[in-house]
């Protein structure tokens, strides 16, 4: 009888420990979003997106910020791990992305909208990946 009680207590303790472990793991090791695997909420041209932000930043922040966007445009600037589309949208790629970009190349990218940079007058996109390189606009 005593043995059985001990057994049950043991089981309960074990269950609680596992539960605590799972909760801890969910809290401290919860995964970041994987933007490249998410479905885009909006498909939009680079100049259009920038136009919205430049004209009404507050409502554009509500609508686009933190959303996954598919943005199309022509590359006007190439930097180490980022490109600029139509001089209006700056795109930062995932750290280990291997890409060869050229000025004047039409492109479609997918990434997370971070907001509007009023110093550069550019919309910023991060965690981007390339959707289509030879997309004709």
């Amino acid at each position, binding site marked *: 009888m005593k043995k059985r009680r001990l057994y049950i207590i043991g089981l309960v303790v074990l269950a609680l420990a596992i539960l605590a472990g799972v909760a801890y793991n969910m809290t401290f090791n*919860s*995964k970041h*979003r994987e933007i490249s695997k998410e479905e885009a909420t909006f498909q939009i041209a680079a100049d259009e997106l920038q136009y919205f932000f430049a004209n009404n930043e507050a409502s554009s922040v509500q609508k686009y910020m933190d959303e996954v966007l598919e943005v199309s445009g022509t590359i006007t600037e190439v930097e180490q791990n980022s490109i600029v589309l139509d001089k209006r949208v700056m795109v*930062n790629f995932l750290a280990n992305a291997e890409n060869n970009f050229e000025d004047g190349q039409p492109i479609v990218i997918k990434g997370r909208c971070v907001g*509007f940079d009023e110093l550069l007058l550019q919309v*910023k996109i991060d965690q981007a990946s390339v959707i289509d390189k030879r997309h004709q606009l």
Partner: protein
Amino acid sequence: MKIRRTTITITLLLLAFTSFKSTAQRLVDKNGTVEFEASEALFEPVEAKNESVTAVMDTEKNEIASLALIKGFRFKNSLMEEHFNENYIESETYPKATFKGKLIDFNITDLGNEPKKVRVDGKLQLHGKEKNIDTHLDVSKSGDGVVIRGSFIVTPDDFDIKIPSIVKNKIAKEVKVSLDFNLN
């Protein structure tokens, strides 16, 4: 005679061009780094990094402006990132942090490859509040560009950011903000 005149005109034009370039210089870094840390010993580190901060410097007026989009700050812990954005800094309402300031007693022509302590005085704006920042940063020359590195301390109170009592002892009272700009 005609050739000489043309030569003089070209020389003058070139001179005008070079002097124009050296006086009205605007240097830009589009992918500057800003980090902040508010960790307490024994608790999970509270730190985040933004690697696409914009910095613009006018080397004639010795002015500097910088802008960081709050959503661009990445934490190791995604839940911490979520809380930071939603509960503390309220990035939907206040999506950016800006700094505008002046480099005091600074002359770009005195600048060498060795970092020099330069006093920077300006205003940091975030969460709808503004705070005066007066600090010394390391400034050095790098090719045609300028490198600015350094750090300063702010507190959540400065910007009216409320930390709930339940996590109060896990977040440091003082937040160390470090920056690394490579302006070209």
